[in-house]
């Protein structure tokens, strides 16, 4: 009995916070737009078996067909995938040295360094992205600085370009990479490196042959933590990117708010979820393997 209730709790959680919302969105994605409150038809009627059957009969796949007919959506999915992959790569490129440096620092400094990584979270995410607009704009601080050093003659156009989106994403998600990598590196046993060097390994190859493989779990966890939310990111591309930065989060917002087309917006969301399910399952598997290895 106790076992059942133990299993029940997480499943209830999953049911309430994942499955039910998913089914609601799925239902909307199969309906048609309508001029009504809410703006789609049919709405669920559970008053009797006949009305329920009529409800089910009115659902169709039309919106999914519409998605396949229009290349905008595929381009947006692919472009989001590309942006998410590149951003994850750069976050790793910048985040790993930071985490490595933190793990190498003196033990009494580490809490302070950890604090410094977390500190930006104390300010609203939106304000931090807004301040990047001030830094990157044509009259912004970055351009003023570069101009005053004579490094450039004309202000660089960064804001409203994909570059600004990458900067925003890498900046925002950096802690999600640094923290798991740091926690993996911190557990690293220093004597392993000494042993490698004693056995004739150079410091560089010891790094690649010992440190990196042992921090693999942290790198994988960090990469997923960056990749998954970036794929559906909406705020950063809409504030920092121009209208040419195509991301599925923005398309979704436009379907919902500009087109008032809830059924198509829901269909876009369902496909996005299906695309995300694969990396999420991989992530879960990785976590599980790690736990088994540790346990």
């Amino acid at each position, binding site marked *: 009995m106790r076992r059942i209730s133990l299993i029940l709790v997480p499943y209830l959680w999953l049911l309430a916070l994942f499955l039910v919302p998913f089914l609601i969105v799925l239902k909307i994605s199969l309906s048609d737009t309508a*001029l009504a*409150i*809410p703006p789609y038809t049919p709405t669920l009627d559970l008053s009797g078996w006949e009305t329920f059957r009529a409800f089910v009969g009115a659902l169709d796949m039309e919106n999914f067909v519409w998605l396949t007919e229009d290349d905008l959506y595929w*381009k947006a999915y692919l472009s989001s995938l590309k942006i998410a992959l590149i951003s994850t790569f750069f976050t790793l490129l910048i985040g790993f040295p930071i985490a490595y440096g933190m793990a190498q620092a003196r033990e009494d400094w580490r809490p302070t360094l950890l604090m410094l990584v977390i500190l930006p979270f104390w300010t609203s995410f939106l304000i931090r992205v807004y301040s990047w607009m001030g830094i990157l704009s044509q009259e912004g601080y970055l351009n003023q600085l570069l101009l005053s050093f004579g490094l450039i003659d004309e202000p660089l156009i960064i804001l409203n370009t994909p570059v600004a989106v990458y900067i925003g994403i890498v900046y925002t998600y950096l802690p999600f990479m640094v923290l798991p990598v740091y926690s993996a590196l911190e557990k690293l046993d220093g004597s392993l490196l000494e042993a490698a060097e004693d056995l004739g390994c150079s410091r560089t190859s010891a790094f690649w042959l010992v440190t990196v493989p042992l921090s693999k779990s942290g790198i994988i966890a960090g990469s997923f933590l960056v990749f998954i939310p970036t794929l559906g990111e909406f705020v950063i591309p809409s504030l920092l990117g*121009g209208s040419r930065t195509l991301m599925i989060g923005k398309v979704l917002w436009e379907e919902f708010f500009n*087109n008032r087309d809830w059924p198509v917006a829901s269909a876009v969301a369902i496909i996005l979820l299906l695309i995300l399910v694969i990396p999420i399952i991989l992530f879960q598997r990785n976590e599980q393997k790690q736990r088994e290895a540790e346990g």
Partner: protein
Amino acid sequence: MNKTLLTLSASVALSAFAASAEEVRVYNWSDYIDEDLLYKFEEETGIDLIYDVFDSNEVLETKMLAGGSGYDVVVPSGTFLQRQIQAGAFQKLDGTKLSNAGNMWDVIADRTAQYDPDNAYSINYMWGTTGIGVNVAKVQEALGADAPLDSMELVLNPANMEKLADCGVHFLDAPSEMIPMTLQYLGENPDSHDPDVIAKAGPVLEAVRPYIQKFHSSEYINALANGDICVAVGWSGDILQARDRAAEAENGVEIAYNAFAQGSLMWFDQMAIPVDAPNPDAAHTFLNFIMDEHNMAAASNYVYYANGNEASQAHLEEDVIGDPAIYPTPETLENLYTTTPYPTKVQRRVTRLWTKIKSGT
């Protein structure tokens, strides 16, 4: 201006906590009222006012159709109002609570009845045209002294736009206005609901797309006033506000507004009460306050839009009532066109076309 309004709504909201329980929540366009009026309303009525702003009919409609927006007064434009009335989003006005209704102007009321029969659900707040704002000196520098400042040629002819791209061009992010405008340019019926006709607007806008810096419906006010951009397709009063801000800043920027010589869209922003408004009584009080001739005149004098309140005209400043860009002459009035709402399936085509134009895919 947006920032001041935001802080304002925050401070008004804060004072709500301190004072009595009755409050009214108003959702209006950005840069669209004299803020002093908001304080005056609170003082006169003792009702706390929470004032939020938006800059897109589409966003407002999403909130209305989702239901439960929590607002007591909202301000959709005519075509959007008509659709939302059909969707059952608004409640009928109670004439007995609107003692100032006699101030309204029949010339405008006749036209708004096209969207809201008998004006049963709404009152006119402001009306205006969608036209073109230019930084005169910069445009003439780019195109010569004979630049067509009041013509669609300026913004829809790629040859002109190519030369203007460097000094900056903004377009409204409003498909329901930009597509009809392009159809008007092509000599088609701007109010066409035929998907094949609507599709003709695509190539024209795509040809000038590379030279448009941004599609946005409120940023152009400051951008024009600061000299960051030299051309904006925008709403009459917004561009006139930009003209005034530039004049006040004495930054040497001279802004001019013109309705299109080929004919401009005439639109009406209507105040209405959502069907699920938490406080419809206070909403009526707010509408009646706005319909007061002095208050309406103060609002128009501040935002440079014409209003639908005949009695207020006695209190309008000369640079408002006397400016044909705001109160058009009868001849110009004939050159203006209005539109009707798109059916849902056509709407999808229009917005899809717009996304395609904006994103270049």
